[in-house]
């Protein structure tokens, strides 16, 4: 570390973490849907299309049914602010923890994400529309089934680092001699499957379809319009990027992050994160094209497989040879 260079204030970096997620999320979604279309032989939407969509929705008016209460309108805002909070807790740009980084651990981040999902489900139930309620009920059911997997992944983090702080695990992965351990790999694979479920990707859900009966997450927002819908779509793009960030910067490849807060390294970290997220998105796009959607009643089997892998990860630590 050379003395006398300018350092970006930790609070500014923290704000940048949130800003990166907010501004970068639609870009990552745009790249994924573009690549997905190209893989299917279509020309596909422009990479910046999600931004145009958001801008259009923000100019429109919000329509609310007579039966809906304030919950219907508050939910998009609550969900959006939940997804704003999580980037404060996870290593988005830096290897060192920022002032509010210890505000919550991995479980805390999980709770905040769950609160976002809960408020959207509440709004869907409030709308009174059958498809939105169907989606909300399914999302909650499968969310409950995903939860044990997440818990076991957190246990693995705890066993590796003796803490449950995302920064600590990322630090463990970076010190290269500890990078690869069977339990760690199994936990990363289990978390990969969780991301697949939580972002509504193909073995679980087609996110491009228009058939309401097959929808899970998508169906919940059917009744929203205008700025409220924009916030929900933006929020789900942010949730996707947050989950990608956790998978990349905590489990798989926490490289290219700023270690000293120098302006150049922070800018580099933003580029690195978006680049890695796009690469991961390409993996998801390829999976989208290779596999068929599972029948709804087969999804618990998929989740059971993810859970099994997570359990195995913990078991490897306890009964495996030390």
């Amino acid at each position: 570390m050379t003395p006398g260079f300018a350092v970006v204030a930790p609070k500014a970096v923290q704000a940048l973490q949130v800003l990166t997620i907010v501004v970068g999320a639609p870009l990552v979604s745009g790249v994924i849907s573009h690549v997905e279309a190209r893989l299917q032989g279509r020309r596909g939407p422009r990479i910046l299309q999600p931004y145009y969509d958001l801008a259009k929705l923000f100019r429109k008016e919000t329509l609310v049914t007579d039966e809906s209460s304030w919950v219907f309108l508050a939910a998009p805002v609550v969900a959006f602010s939940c997804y704003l909070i999580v980037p404060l807790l996870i290593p988005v740009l830096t290897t060192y923890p920022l002032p509010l980084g210890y505000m919550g651990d991995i479980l805390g981040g999980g709770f905040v994400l769950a609160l976002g999902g809960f408020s959207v489900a509440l709004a869907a139930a409030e709308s009174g529309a059958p498809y939105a309620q169907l989606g909300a009920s399914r999302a909650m059911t499968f969310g409950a089934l995903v939860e044990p997997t997440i818990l076991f992944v957190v246990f693995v983090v705890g066993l590796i680092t003796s803490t449950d702080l995302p920064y600590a695990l990322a630090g463990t992965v970076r010190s290269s001699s500890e990078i690869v351990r069977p339990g760690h790999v199994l936990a990363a694979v289990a978390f990969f499957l969780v991301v697949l479920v939580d972002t509504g990707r193909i073995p679980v859900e087609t996110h491009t379809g228009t058939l309401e009966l097959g929808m899970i997450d998508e169906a919940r927002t059917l009744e929203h319009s205008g700025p409220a819908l924009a916030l929900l779509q933006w929020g789900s793009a942010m949730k996707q990027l947050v989950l990608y960030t956790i998978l990349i910067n905590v489990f798989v490849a926490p490289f290219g992050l700023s270690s000293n807060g120098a302006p150049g390294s922070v800018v580099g970290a933003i580029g690195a994160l978006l680049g890695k997220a796009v690469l991961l998105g390409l993996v998801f796009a390829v999976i989208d094209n290779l596999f068929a959607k599972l029948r709804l009643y087969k999804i618990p089997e998929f989740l059971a497989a993810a859970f099994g892998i997570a359990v195995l990860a913990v078991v490897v630590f306890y009964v495996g040879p030390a």
Partner: protein
Amino acid sequence: MPVHVPSTTAGVEDVVAVLVLLTEFAMLRGPLLRSQVRLYAFQSLAVSVLAVVVAATRHLADIYALAGLSFVLKVVIVPAVMTRLLRDVDVDLAGSSKLGVASSMLVALAVSVFGFFAVGSLHVHSSLLPSTTLAVASAVVLVAFVLIVLRSDVVSQAMGFFSLENGVSIAGLVIAAGLPLVVETTFLFDLLVAVVAFGIIIRVHHGRSRTLSTDELDRLRG
């Protein structure tokens, strides 16, 4: 609990071994016979990569030859032969498992936990023996047994047997990398014999009963 930290080499071996184990689980789940064969090819590829890693880190030139041989045999030839056989018999779905998918996953999980526990309770501590990889290899062998026991069609059982050989290969590679090449090659030719035997079984069985299910064989009891 003091957390043991493996060296990078041992770590890479562990990761490849874990990939093999995950493939074994996927084979247990795969409903199509073709996907079984593809998963086996991927699993064999991982084993070949492991052989290259072992050869590179322990400076054993003849293991490179073994890696090449196992790549040609297990990633190219065996899957090609099996695919050819499958094209002739015109059956797509694997025989139904005796348990549901979730239950068989649980059984496999319990069995692999037993494998880990068994190797862990040996209390063998040696800097030369990567006991984690050994534990994973034993789990692979046990899950392959589960696959053979639960699936009721000839092809799945054959693939289970071949992937069992993969598990044994991993154990052999990490425990006795210095074993003479002749011995290791003999294992591979054993596999070749098994392929021929299973090929004949598939042909004859399908020729007689127009199915690949082994349930038919029960009726042969005297």
